[in-house]
């Protein structure tokens, strides 16, 4: 014991202690709370006193029509966001890379990052106003062309489109700079060599630029695979309403309604556990793939 106290590495352990305590209480203890998913939870009896029901919560869930719907919605919305979030920033970065005026580049970046730093409460408020069927700017503009007012946030045909496009609107500036950094890192002699070989602009883009940003693109995609069940709770919660549950209700919003609003703790935890388990597998796979294909290690 005395030897340990005199150890020069003791301060290192001490420095970690507060963080470990926080993680133990607020990250690891909730993991133990997952047992609620297998219980008929009764608040007065607590986590370890409530009756055990085995897989019954899950059986109930699989028979619930909502469950299939939220899983399908979650997967659809999340994958559309991943795909759009890949294509748009690369496209914009390629175009921005052609711009020679630094001033223009910098102003452009300043403007397009801005929405990234605003919360979905603020952006939700702005979108609700913009998309309002009665006096929203979007419907007014469409009205000039003779289009009847569309209730974007209340129409199942439009809701997912709004979710994906507003997510791209908020986040594409952030990814664009990542790709732009990769683009500026491409060795200029490659372009010279290509043009001596007679490659025009398009072919240079195809044979030099795209391969140059491929590693970072692969990295971004593999890392986003872990998010395939994160369809964006903050965004959807602030934009959805019962009429669009059919197209916009996702796992996280269902968990919120079941657990927090209706206090069905066992069921809500079971849904959450399903999500966490699938996410864990996806994240593990994506990190493995990022390591294999892009040689990326998180630590």
């Amino acid at each position, binding site marked *: 014991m005395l030897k340990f106290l005199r150890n*020069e*590495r003791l*301060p*290192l*352990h001490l*420095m*970690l202690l507060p*963080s470990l305590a*926080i*993680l133990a209480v*607020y*990250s690891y203890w*909730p*993991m*133990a*709370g*997952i047992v*609620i998913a297998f219980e008929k939870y009764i608040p007065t009896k607590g*986590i370890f006193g409530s009756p055990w029901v085995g897989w019954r919560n899950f059986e109930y869930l699989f028979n619930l029509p909502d469950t299939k719907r939220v899983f399908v919605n979650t997967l659809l919305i999340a994958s559309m966001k991943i795909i759009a979030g890949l294509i748009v920033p690369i496209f*914009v970065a390629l*175009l*921005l890379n*052609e711009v020679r005026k630094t001033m*223009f580049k910098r102003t*452009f970046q300043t*403007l*397009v*990052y*801005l929405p990234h*730093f*605003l*919360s979905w*409460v*603020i952006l*939700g*408020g*702005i979108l609700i*106003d*913009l998309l309002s069927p009665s*006096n*929203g*700017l979007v419907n007014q503009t469409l009205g000039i062309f003779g289009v009847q007012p569309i209730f974007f946030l209340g129409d199942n045909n439009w809701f997912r489109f709004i979710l994906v496009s507003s997510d791209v*609107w908020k986040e594409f500036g952030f990814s664009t700079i990542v790709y732009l*950094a990769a683009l500026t890192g491409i060795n200029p002699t490659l372009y010279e060599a290509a043009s001596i070989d007679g490659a025009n602009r398009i072919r240079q883009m195809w044979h030099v630029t795209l391969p140059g940003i491929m590693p970072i693109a692969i990295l971004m995609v593999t890392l986003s695979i872990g998010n395939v069940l994160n369809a964006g709770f*903050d965004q959807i919660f*602030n934009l959805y309403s019962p009429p669009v549950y059919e197209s916009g209700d996702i796992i*996280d919003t269902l*968990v*919120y309604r079941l*657990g*927090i609003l209706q206090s069905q*703790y066992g069921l*809500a*935890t079971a*849904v*959450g*556990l399903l999500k*966490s388990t699938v996410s864990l597998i996806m994240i593990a796979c994506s990190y493995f793939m990022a390591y294999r294909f892009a040689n990326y290690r*998180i*630590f």
Partner: protein
Amino acid sequence: MVSHASISRKIFVVCNYVFLMALSLLCVLPLVHIFAVSLSSGAAASAGIVKLWPVEFTTAAYQNIFDKPQYFTAFWVSVKRVLLGTGINLLLTITAAYPLSKDSSYFRPRTVYVWIFVITMLFSGGLIPWFMTIKATGLMDSIWALVLPSAVPVFNVILLLNFFRSLPKELEESARIDGAGHFMILWKFYVPLSLPALATITLFSMVGHWNSWFDGLILMNNPDNYPLQTFLQTIVISKDPRFLSAQEAELLLQMSDRTSTAAQIYVAALPILLVYPFLQRFFVKGIVMGSVKE
């Protein structure tokens, strides 16, 4: 190159500029429009004639905020939360990143410790067990509920530990020979050398705390304890009738819901807009930082 540019190249350049300009306007015009609405008269706003410039200019909507004690209470909760939360985040990030940045040949349990941190990013108990834990630790309705559960930003710890590993080892070794302890080395060498990285982390942590609203919504039973974003969520998005007094309902009739909503959105976004220039400067560094490795 430029002098030999073909006509098609020139056309492309012009189209490119026009397209990118349109795109950047698309990102800010919605914000400009809402700002114009917030400064217009209620009648003009509900008639929908406001575009990008205020119509019948008035600051009534902003004055209405000043008459609203709840808005200020919520603003103050948010300020407290940002100061307290960012301070704790920063302290814990630094003190956790330093030991974890040591080589496992020197600090053998390092790998185990890193995994303890990383696992929390890979798996979680989900919303309900998390909520019940906070309830069980007695934090409900206290400012600590907004600060403690997210006190260790694991992602930032990993960013910073990677940054620490890229710092030169020689200084530290010579200091150790002179008898300096780990706390001294961290404070005298690591912190001053990583100020840009720390600034990035601090700013992001501040923005994160300012912007979060969901924890306030479920962890605060008493609306007086809501941080601003949560308060805004309940009045702008959910339109919770609890927050509309009779007097207010009358006010709303005079100046329309729309302008007052727009003004409240603006005041809540203001701190972000103010720190945005700084954020932007550190932004690129923040992204590059994580990829700096040996």
